[in-house]
């Protein structure tokens, strides 16, 4: 869904196809996982803009590099053919060209930045006939909580979405900054305490994706990963049905436990939710996570993480 009508030449398309596979086949890996291998419209636009602007700039940069090395080689001291012009240090015409090449490039890119920033504004809903799925996201120390208000369920470190359906994420944090990022779906955005960021994404096809935090958040940061499962719309209903009503309920008491720091938290689900919970977290009616708690051996000034060491 080409929402962005700027150059999308066949070269770029070919490159986009070729790059990730080319790169990762060198790395003996399957063609998956990267931001150049998008599974949804937002990621596709991100990747197109990334590659198009790289190509535009390479068109200037490669000749410049070649020029630099050619000039240096041609005028090497040992080469009698390079004419010595010891006083040539100004030329209005060269100056004009020298200022205009980068200026023109940047004007061109400026247009792209302008259009792209508006088109890919994370707060902007995706144009689609399908009603978006609402997901509320809370980053905690060190896990992700996903609340499905329409379905009345919640999950930890596991995000299941119906394919080909826009998803509207409302994102906040109950401790420090994090960034919500699913590389193959595109645009990331910060999760910040006391604030709600909006993000609209969509997975076009079913698939298993990696989700991460892209903003360092402390000792358990590396394990702030979540599985993203894009499933056919019908399967999504079945999944919701299987979760709803089973297992624990995400009420204030259950949430209070989540606020405690913990590393390597396995995915899990809640069969019911407190519908006001997200709002209470976002406007800090419920106090943010308490951080590291005393316990474990005492070290002067040295912090000790609450969970086991690696």
């Amino acid at each position, binding site marked *: 869904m080409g929402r962005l009508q700027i150059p999308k030449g066949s070269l770029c398309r070919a490159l986009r196809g070729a790059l990730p596979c080319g*790169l990762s086949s060198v790395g003996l890996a399957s063609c998956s996982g990267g931001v150049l291998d998008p599974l949804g419209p937002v990621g596709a636009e991100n990747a197109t803009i990334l590659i198009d602007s790289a190509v535009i700039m390479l068109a200037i940069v490669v000749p410049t590099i070649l020029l630099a090395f050619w000039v240096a080689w041609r005028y090497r001291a040992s080469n009698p053919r390079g004419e010595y012009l010891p006083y040539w240090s100004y030329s209005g015409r060269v100056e004009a060209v020298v200022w205009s090449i980068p200026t023109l490039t940047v004007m061109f890119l400026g247009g792209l930045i302008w259009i792209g*920033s508006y088109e890919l504004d994370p707060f902007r809903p995706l144009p689609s006939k399908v009603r978006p799925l609402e997901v509320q996201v809370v980053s905690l120390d060190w896990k992700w909580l996903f609340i499905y208000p329409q379905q009345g369920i919640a999950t930890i470190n596991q995000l299941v979405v119906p394919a080909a359906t826009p998803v509207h994420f409302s994102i906040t944090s109950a401790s420090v900054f994090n960034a919500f990022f699913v590389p193959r779906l595109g645009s990331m*955005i910060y999760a910040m305490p006391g604030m709600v960021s909006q993000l609209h994404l969509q997975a076009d096809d079913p698939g298993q994706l990696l989700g991460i935090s892209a903003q360092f958040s402390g000792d358990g940061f590396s394990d702030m990963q979540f599985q993203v499962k894009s499933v056919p719309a019908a399967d999504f209903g079945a999944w919701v049905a299987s979760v709803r009503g089973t297992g624990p309920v995400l009420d204030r008491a259950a949430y209070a436990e989540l606020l405690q720091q913990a590393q390597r938290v396995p995915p899990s689900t809640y069969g019911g939710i407190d519908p006001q919970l997200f709002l209470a977290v976002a406007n800090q009616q419920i106090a943010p996570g308490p951080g590291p708690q005393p316990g474990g051996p005492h070290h*002067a000034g040295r912090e000790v993480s609450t969970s086991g060491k690696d």
Partner: protein
Amino acid sequence: MLGKLDLSAIPLSQPIPLITSFVVILIAVAVLILITAKGWWPYLWHEWITSVDHKRIGVMYCLLGVVMLIRGFADAIMMRTHQALAIDAPGYLPPEHYDQVFTAHGTIMILFGAMPLVLGFMNFLVPLQLGVRDVAFPTFNSVGFWLTASGALLVNVSLFVGEFARTGWLPYPPLSETTYTPGVGVDYYLWAVQISGVGTLITGINIVTTVLKMRCPGMSFLRMPVFCWTALASCMLIVATFPILSATLAMLTLDRYLGWHYFTNTAGGNPMMFVNLVWAWGHPEVYILVLPAFGIFSEIFSTFSGKPLFGYRSMVAATLFICIVSMMVWLHHFFTMGAGPAVNTFFGISSSIIAVGTGVKIYNWIFTMYGGRVRFEVPMLWSMGFIFTFIIGGLTGVLLAIPPADFVTHNSMFLVAHFHNVIIGGVVFGIFAGLEFWFPKAFGFRLHEGWGKVAFWFAFIGFWVTFTPLYVLGLLGMTRRLQHINIEAWRPWLYISVIGVGILILGVISQVMQLVVSIRDRETLRDVTGDPWDGRSLEWATPSPPPFFNFAVMPNVEGEEAYWGIKLRAVETQQLSPEPKYEPIHMPVNSPVGFFTAFFTTVFGFAMVWYIWWLASVALVAAFVGFVVFAWRDIHEFEVPIEQVASVDRARRAAREALLEKLTRQEVLP
């Protein structure tokens, strides 16, 4: 009595810091014993520690920077090897240690490695190039240096006593608030950076004043070497933005020490404000580093092409343009905060506009070589390596400045590759080019060329092998600062990167070898003329090393490229200018105030970190009293007698006669 400090602050259970501490202390003790045994203390004290000579201070700055670069490089080796070993495995650094390593790496490399080197170059060169005898405030200068050293010392003490911050080199709240990071690590960071920041500000003020007020007769602004312009621009940025850093860190300090709420999660604190403020300093900071490097390259391209710099005025304009625009782009470090498309558009465009200034500079360097006689000696190799590397780094920088592209590359390994691309390719290559270029001026002998070339090639190839895989990893979705990894597809790239680090290690070894070999062969490498590279600016008019008063008589500048003009005239008329009438020179006396103050600020910082309030008060008062006592002194200059001035300058003129003969014989000048 000792605040929070007790024996558990020593990392007895952690072998890596423990052994490192042990080795460092051993080396330090060995050095102290050597100095004592050889009786070098009086020399060190009078000639270096209390020296207010800008050249000595410049050299000490560079020495500090080089030592810290090596410390930071050790951290880098640990990070790259750890990550390669932590794929589906724990690796050898637990998170609480790994997080300190990357924080220390960033902090040390930028603030205690690159900054001292850049400030060192400015200190050493600006007065020489402007044809004056010292900076505007020589004693203040010494204070600035020692405060930077004080900060560096505190950072390194944290390795042995307590811990360092684990928040990243810019300690974003709320993570850096006491709720989430209660240990002393962030406090070490705050006091170390705060103290050295004051030192940097002092040097910035000093250089700005020197350039604006202290040029020799005839040295109008548009006759200054481009390095002086870049030093001026860089120091104006220091003066404009380091106070922002100081204020921001002070606010975080108040949060942490007094429970205030500037940036806390709750009670009305606004952590986003910290992010804005810290980058309002942080982005200009990268230009504070790279502008002087541009200046170094400008001098080298022109000298080694045997031509004036192409488009001098354009270069000056581009420098000032970058200086101003660099203060209007900070938000590109957090497009992903969701500020909205209008804001992102503004900062995206302003960021890419900087590339115009940089692009102009690159073309001007290329046209400087055009029509030249390019000599590929070691400084020139670094400069060519820079052109290639920096262009690519600029390209990826502009990519990151496009908000929708940054939305998928922010904080990724792609970003890590970008800034190393510009900082290593720009600043570090510039520093090494400059060290090769001006080493003979500072120490009187050249560096060994063969080892220099070997070091360059290892560094250049090693750089690309280390960082190209990081670009790929970023595009594969890998974020920065991961303590362990569970994605199999990333493995090969992490391994390649480690190979690159291996090559870089060879580069560092070659660089050390170059120094050792050069010191051994110093007699054959001796620079007797004072002008080893056929230079063009005034520092080459002095002997190598220059006398402490730099110039026996103030040069009289009659055009751009002051020294080149003098040389041309000498060759044309086949004689040096007539011997001047010597006069006694007044030079500032040495002062221990810098060392004294820094000693007490170190104690103060340490005491604050550990909540030893009585000691902190005593140290603060002592540091202040030092200043007051200094202000009361009556004698602040001494006179260099005519005979001494004359004899030094006659020796210089004799060397110049020989040089003149050689230049005439070789017909190197057109």
